[in-house]
């Protein structure tokens, strides 16, 4: 009996070691490339173009970042990205918030949940490129090509179904009694929403907003189609580095690092709820 228990414990330790090894390998697969991206952006060209590669450069330089921000004038594109991402996030969250609240509180004759799920699946399903050509022509007709407005509107509409979906879950969890007491105190529908519902559901709003922001910040296809010069966003500029200017690794990786940072910060801020947002709809909680 004792020997059996000992054997089982031995087996357990063995299993644990394997598990940690697997996780270690997975973590290194993720972190080594990112580490590489980061160090390359700090290396002198001599260290970038050597083999075997230099893991930790002896001389660190900020020249690439300096030339990104000054010489190449990438700053305006960052401003574009920030404005577009923030404005579309704001619009998606505000409109989505109103829509979700009315959907959560007003009774509909049909099954709303199902309708929404199909809607989200639809927007997720068709490849964006299938509408891209016609969308390009429509935007051209409207005279909005190469404007920030065009991209803001586009991303807002991409994000709306997702925002509504996330917020419906949060609004649905608010106990009715809280709102009822507000009604007793004579609050209107709108006051109730602004004074009572919004403060309670701030976590949900943050999750929805962060996901909208990340999508708008990372989006490439429509950004490359709808802009030519003035309204270009960061991903478009990064891709341009490859095709137009040969391979300036230092600057390209520098841009990459700058593009990743905001996303990482946001992901860390909402770490706990992040998983919920990413796995949306796939698993019932």
């Amino acid at each position: 009996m004792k020997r059996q228990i000992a054997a089982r414990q031995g087996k357990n330790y063995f299993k644990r070691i394997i598990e940690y090894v697997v996780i270690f390998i997975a973590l290194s697969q993720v972190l080594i490339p990112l580490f590489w991206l980061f160090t390359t952006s700090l290396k002198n060209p001599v260290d970038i173009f050597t083999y075997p590669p230099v893991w930790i450069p002896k001389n660190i330089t900020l020249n690439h970042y300096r030339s990104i921000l000054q010489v190449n004038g990438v700053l305006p594109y960052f401003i574009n990205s920030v404005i577009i991402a923030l404005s579309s996030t704001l619009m998606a969250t505000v409109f989505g918030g109103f829509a979700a609240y009315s959907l959560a509180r007003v009774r509909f004759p049909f099954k709303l949940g199902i309708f929404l799920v199909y809607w989200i699946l639809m927007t997720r399903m068709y490849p964006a490129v299938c509408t891209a050509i016609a969308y390009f022509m429509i935007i051209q007709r409207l005279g909005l090509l190469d404007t920030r407005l065009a991209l803001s509107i586009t991303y807002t509409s991409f994000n709306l179904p997702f925002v509504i979906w996330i917020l419906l879950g949060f609004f649905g969890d608010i106990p009715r009694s809280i709102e009822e007491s507000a009604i007793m105190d004579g609050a209107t529908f709108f006051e109730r929403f602004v004074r009572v519902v919004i403060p309670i559901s701030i976590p949900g709003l943050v999750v929805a907003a962060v996901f909208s922001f990340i999508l708008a910040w990372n989006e490439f296809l429509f950004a490359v189609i709808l802009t030519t010069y003035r309204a270009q966003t960061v991903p478009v500029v990064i891709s341009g580095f490859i095709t137009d200017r040969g391979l300036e690794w230092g600057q390209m990786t520098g841009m990459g690092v700058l593009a990743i940072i905001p996303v990482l910060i946001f992901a860390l801020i909402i770490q706990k709820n992040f998983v919920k947002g990413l796995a949306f709809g796939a698993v019932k909680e």
Partner: protein
Amino acid sequence: MSITSLIPLAYSLGVSFTNLNLLRPGQPIQFVGLQNYSTGIRDGEFLTAAWNTILIVSVSLGLQLLIGLMLSLILSQERKGFRLWQTILLIPNIIAPVVVGVLWRLMFNPDYGIFKLGLAQIGIDKPWLQHPIWAKVAVIIVETWTWTPFVMLTLIAGLKSLSDTPFEAARIDGASGLQIFRYITMPLLKPVIAVTLLLRLMDAFKMFDSIYVLTYGGPGLATEVLSLRIYKKGLKYFDITEASAQSWIFLICIFVISYIIAKKFVQVEKRIE
């Protein structure tokens, strides 16, 4: 929603039946029936792209499921530090695909990329992005790197939502770990795997950004996928009628595949109630 998807969809459907030519604005627009569809589906480049898409999607999806399942089985246990590690593992999935492309282009570089470092020693020293077959392998590696975290995440959520009772019962009956996995975990997890597969499939067919940066479909047409093909045809060569017809062929294929999977494995309604 309707402005950005329904109207353009309808518009492209309309255009696909005409001979509209953007490069010759004065030309009268005529209805040409299914002509664009018949030339579009016989277009050799389109077929190559379709084949590449199927190959890349199926191989990388298989790998993602395999690795994702393995990681999720480990990480779904409640242990110290696992939540942080899980968040770190998610990074590839949330950074811009364009940056992913840049990153891997740097790593695959045949002269000074670090991907060469480990593999050269075991005799795999390939011109990754320059060789038609190895470029496909490279794209599959990048797809897997990017999307395994998503698969892992949904499976972890799925595993955590399973009730403990059947597992305890099996343990009391003296079932081995492998038996538990084979006869309890897998059957219970099947719906979650199916939903994950469905979501991933729909996204995978859209892959565009990282390939655009990594290979731009090259060398030759070796890594050309459908999204990239339609993009080039419609917005680089301005052959919008045929591109529209091809995007509708593409769309219909995706709808059919998704519908089959959804019908077969997933009962969407049941998951919401």
